[in-house]
């Protein structure tokens, strides 16, 4: 709403500069977009909030100004000269839908001269950004901007039978509106029709029809000034996708009492600018007349909510200026500042949204000044808690960052076919019914799809080395319920080690990923790795992750066919696991962790160089050794591995390093010799291993 400073002065003798005024308005609740000095003086851009339709006119803003500066607001008292002929003989109005249209007033002016508006009127309209059309049409816009109430003018002679019927739209009904567009109507819409009501001549509260429009040949004018039910108007505007100055005002709640006054003001201006003869009286059908609500406000409640007091005088002056007519009704009314003070207020017709005591408290506080309530920090009455997994998640983050992973955040909206690449079978994705685009039409059913996209972005922008992690959620449907699951997703590509002065570079490999995951897994006990894994992973370089025999995720190299979809030209590694389960395990592991006394006797390492048939897993070696139940074995490591050269085909060489340690004594050579012999025998018998050297 553009507020013209000089126009405002028609109503209130404000002396503050436009800048000062704008700043005071902003601090009392009228948001200000800016102040401009244009050809027609200062214009303040007021961004009126949706609960204040009364401020969508200069009079309403003037009322705010009056309250702020304690200045009187001049009353609007139009007294147009009337002829002896009665309006009620010239036009009839019938409201069939009082639930949608609470009031309809009609005035008739005969023998007007439609012509361009005078300069002062054009200037004011121009200053508010409204195009001038003709004197009569301009008057209706002018009055709307002045008093905040929309009006509509008909060419009286085009209204059939000079009769208006307000009714609901009929099935299949259409109307061509003033903007020339033919619109399909919905039976819930409130229509203005004429004659036998078969023809619609306007959509109530939104826009008039083209057929009864004022033109330069119009002789007689019918002024409509009505009141329409706000929710119905908002519904209608949304249904029609037609948002007008009128629908904004009616949709937020216009002042029903203003309808007649605005009509009279319009008549006065039309007579002044277009001449003619105003028929006496007004046809006023007013089924929705309300008795003004009484609302009480007490000092006790004011103190309870605001925490600091407001003097009686300030309470009364602000409420009076805003039209609430406060009256002290408590027994102590003689005593100023009484804690028992109670004021009874009357809701003004233009403030339908003020219904409760809290609403009045807000009015008092904002006019008094929010800065007058001294800030203080309230005492806490109980301890504060972090999220249940805060500690586990923090440990996880620290470790990931230590391992060189950078945290990312992604938007879960993805393309259906991309999500499907990583979506487990049988999972129902959460699709949007109103996506902005196909590329963002599904909420990710896994964290991998957005991780792959982040790697893709980096590779496409010349960043070939990336180690990333995301702590996020994936979104799925279970029937008609949504399921959001926190997940950790890792992504890595490029160098596993940067080249530097002392070492060459090395590409990130599956072993890097496994090592990183095992470092993380140590927080939660440790991960168990199992064969297999989802199809988006490379069949030869993937694994399933378990924690205490519960499957929680998978890790490995991205499968070639998926990598091709992203046009990846280098190996990409991904992992994902269920975060809640992991964090629970971290907590459990922490609870179960106990100190293990350090060994007092030295450990002894022995290396076993084995030739093993291809396909023999290290875990089989470990299992075979552990099966011997030699309690002095404290560690079994794979120390070296190679194929080819002196190793016969079908075999590979594995150097296994075993640490022996006793808690009771230093081990003797004889004991170690005995253990070694048993180990070798077991490996030879169970795995077909050959000992190369020890």
């Amino acid at each position, binding site marked *: 709403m553009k507020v013209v400073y000089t126009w405002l002065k028609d109503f209130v003798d404000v002396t503050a500069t436009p800048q000062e005024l704008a700043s005071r308005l902003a*601090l009392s609740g009228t948001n200000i977009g800016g102040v401009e000095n244009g050809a027609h003086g200062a214009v303040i851009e007021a961004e009126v909030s949706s609960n204040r339709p009364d401020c969508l006119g200069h009079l309403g803003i003037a009322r705010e100004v009056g309250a702020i500066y304690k200045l009187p607001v001049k009353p609007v008292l139009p007294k147009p000269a009337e002829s002896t002929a009665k309006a009620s003989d010239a036009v009839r109005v019938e409201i069939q839908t009082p639930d949608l249209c609470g009031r309809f007033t009609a005035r008739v002016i005969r023998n007007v001269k439609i012509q361009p508006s005078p300069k002062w009127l054009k200037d004011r309209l121009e200053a508010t950004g409204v195009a001038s059309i003709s004197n009569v049409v301009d008057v209706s816009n002018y009055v709307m901007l002045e008093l905040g109430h929309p009006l509509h003018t008909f060419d009286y002679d085009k209204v059939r039978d000079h009769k208006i019927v307000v009714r609901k739209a009929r099935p299949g009904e259409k109307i061509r509106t003033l903007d020339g567009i033919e619109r399909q109507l919905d039976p819930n819409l409130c229509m203005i029709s004429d004659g036998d009501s078969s023809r619609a001549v306007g959509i109530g509260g939104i826009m008039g029809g083209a057929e009864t429009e004022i033109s330069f040949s119009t002789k007689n004018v019918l002024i409509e000034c009505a009141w329409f039910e706000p929710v119905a108007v*908002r519904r209608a505007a949304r249904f029609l996708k037609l948002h007008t100055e009128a629908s904004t005002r009616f949709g937020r709640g216009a002042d029903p009492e203003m309808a007649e006054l605005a009509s009279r003001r319009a008549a006065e201006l039309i007579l002044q600018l277009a001449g003619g003869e105003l028929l006496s009286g007004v046809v006023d059908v007013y089924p929705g007349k309300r008795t003004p609500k009484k609302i009480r406000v007490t000092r006790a409640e004011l103190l309870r909510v605001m925490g600091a007091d407001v003097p009686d005088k300030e309470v009364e002056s602000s409420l009076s200026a805003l039209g609430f007519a406060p009256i002290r009704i408590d027994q102590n009314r003689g005593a100023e500042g009484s804690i028992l003070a109670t004021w009874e207020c009357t809701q003004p017709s233009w403030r339908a949204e003020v219904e409760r005591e809290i609403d009045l408290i807000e009015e008092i506080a904002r006019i008094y000044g929010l800065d007058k309530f001294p800030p203080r920090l309230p005492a806490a009455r*109980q301890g504060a808690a972090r999220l249940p997994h805060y500690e586990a998640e923090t440990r996880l983050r620290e470790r990931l960052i230590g391992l060189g992973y950078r945290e990312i955040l992604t938007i879960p909206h993805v393309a259906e076919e991309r999500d499907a690449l990583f979506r487990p079978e049988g999972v129902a994705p959460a699709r949007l019914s109103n996506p902005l685009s196909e590329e963002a039409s599904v909420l990710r059913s896994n964290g991998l799809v957005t991780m792959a996209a982040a790697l893709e972005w980096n590779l496409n922008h010349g960043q070939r080395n990336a180690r990333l992690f995301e702590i996020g959620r994936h979104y799925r449907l279970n029937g008609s319920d949504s399921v959001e699951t926190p997940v950790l997703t890792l992504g890595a590509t490029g160098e596993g080690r940067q080249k530097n002065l002392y070492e060459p570079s090395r590409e990130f490999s599956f072993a890097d990923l496994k090592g990183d995951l095992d470092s993380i897994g140590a927080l939660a006990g440790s991960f168990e790795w199992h064969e297999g894994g989802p199809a988006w992973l490379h069949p030869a370089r993937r694994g399933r992750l378990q924690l205490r025999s519960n499957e929680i995720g998978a890790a490995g190299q991205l499968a070639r066919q998926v990598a091709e979809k992203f046009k990846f030209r280098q190996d990409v590694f991904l992992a994902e696991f269920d975060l809640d389960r992991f964090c629970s395990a971290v907590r459990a592991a922490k609870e179960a962790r106990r100190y293990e006394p350090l060994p007092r006797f030295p450990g002894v390492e022995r290396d076993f160089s084995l030739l093993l048939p291809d396909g023999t897993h290290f875990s089989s070696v470990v299992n075979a050794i552990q099966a011997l139940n030699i309690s002095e074995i404290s560690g079994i490591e794979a120390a070296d591995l190679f194929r080819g050269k002196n190793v016969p085909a079908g075999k590979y060489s594995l150097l296994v390093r075993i640490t022996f340690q006793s808690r009771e004594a230093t081990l003797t050579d004889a004991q170690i010799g005995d253990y070694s012999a048993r180990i070798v025998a077991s490996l030879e018998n169970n795995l077909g291993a050959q000992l190369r050297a020890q």
Partner: protein
Amino acid sequence: MPFGVIYIAIMPNIENPTEKTLAALTINDPLAIEELFANEKARFDKQLAAKNPDEVNYALMKNAWLGRKAGVLTLISENWLKSAPPTLKPIVGQSLNQLKRHIEESLELFWVAAEKTSEEAASTRDRVDLSLPGVIRPAGSHHLIRQVFQEIEDIFFSIGFSVVEGPEIETPYYNFEALNIPEFHPVRDDMDTFYLELPKSATTPLLLRTHTSPMQIRTMEKQKPPVRVIVPGKVYRRDNPDATHSFAFHQIEGLAVDADITFCDFTGTIEYFVKQFFGPSVKTRFRPSYFPFTEPSVEFDVSCPFCGGIGTAASGGTCSKCKGAAWIELFGAGMVDPAVYGFVNYDAKKVSGFAFGIGIDRLAMLKYGIDDIQVFFQNDVRFLKQFP
């Protein structure tokens, strides 16, 4: 008896006397013993003086004289001291200790000299070039948004706010109705909402929450006052993306409800937060505003922390952060509207409280001078590296 002295003096090339006992050396008076020790001392000094001070010689000398198995001192102790007649034992012991001290001190000096020499040698050859890089093991980083979340969480946690999280997929009831935003409320026009495609059997529509405020309701449904929570999370609005809009962004909701929470407590809490976040010199301002779920509602402004609240940048031009306004609008907040308590069975006559919703992305953009919200979600490592 001087005999021994003469014997040693005139027979210098005879076998090492420390390998023999005093008796074998036929020494039996204190003077001769002193002479014997003086000779050993002289022998040590001569040897030491003949050697360049370095680590090898130090080790050699130390081993030769102080070595536990066959060092000279060990031999003296074994051969002279142990078998000395009781009358001579004290003098042998004393002399031995003196000699030992002398050798240790001399070797210590020798070692210092050795170190100095080796340092000098190494200075040209082995000394590290401090201007060369070390071996970097690249560390990772927190996302900037996460850092800002953490900072804000910590500030509120320190004044008794618990952290809770909630679903991003919500029902219209929690996102709108229970927050006093009925259908067709004009505020809904400002929050263009994503909806989920659901099977026909669904009993309620599902949407992506447009703010973190639904957690106000969920929290109050679950617990009785006092309530003090903050809710970090992602929110969604169906806006076309550009430099200042993303259809996903981040908020922290705050809610405090108790028997005696007032507007003054509210402004005090917000002020505390902002001074912690932007620094103590920042000024604050509350402008009345409108939200359906708070009353009184406010917009909260801070004096522009970048130009010091004067609207003019250090360069003299208009401050680019506040665009000359001297104030920056930070977020909306207010006292919880009594109507909201009705939805969670709180007695609006007995409790009061406040709520706020802070946009994190905007805050981070302001604080770090980021001009495009999209960088948060592109995850370019060059961006991520800037905020370690």
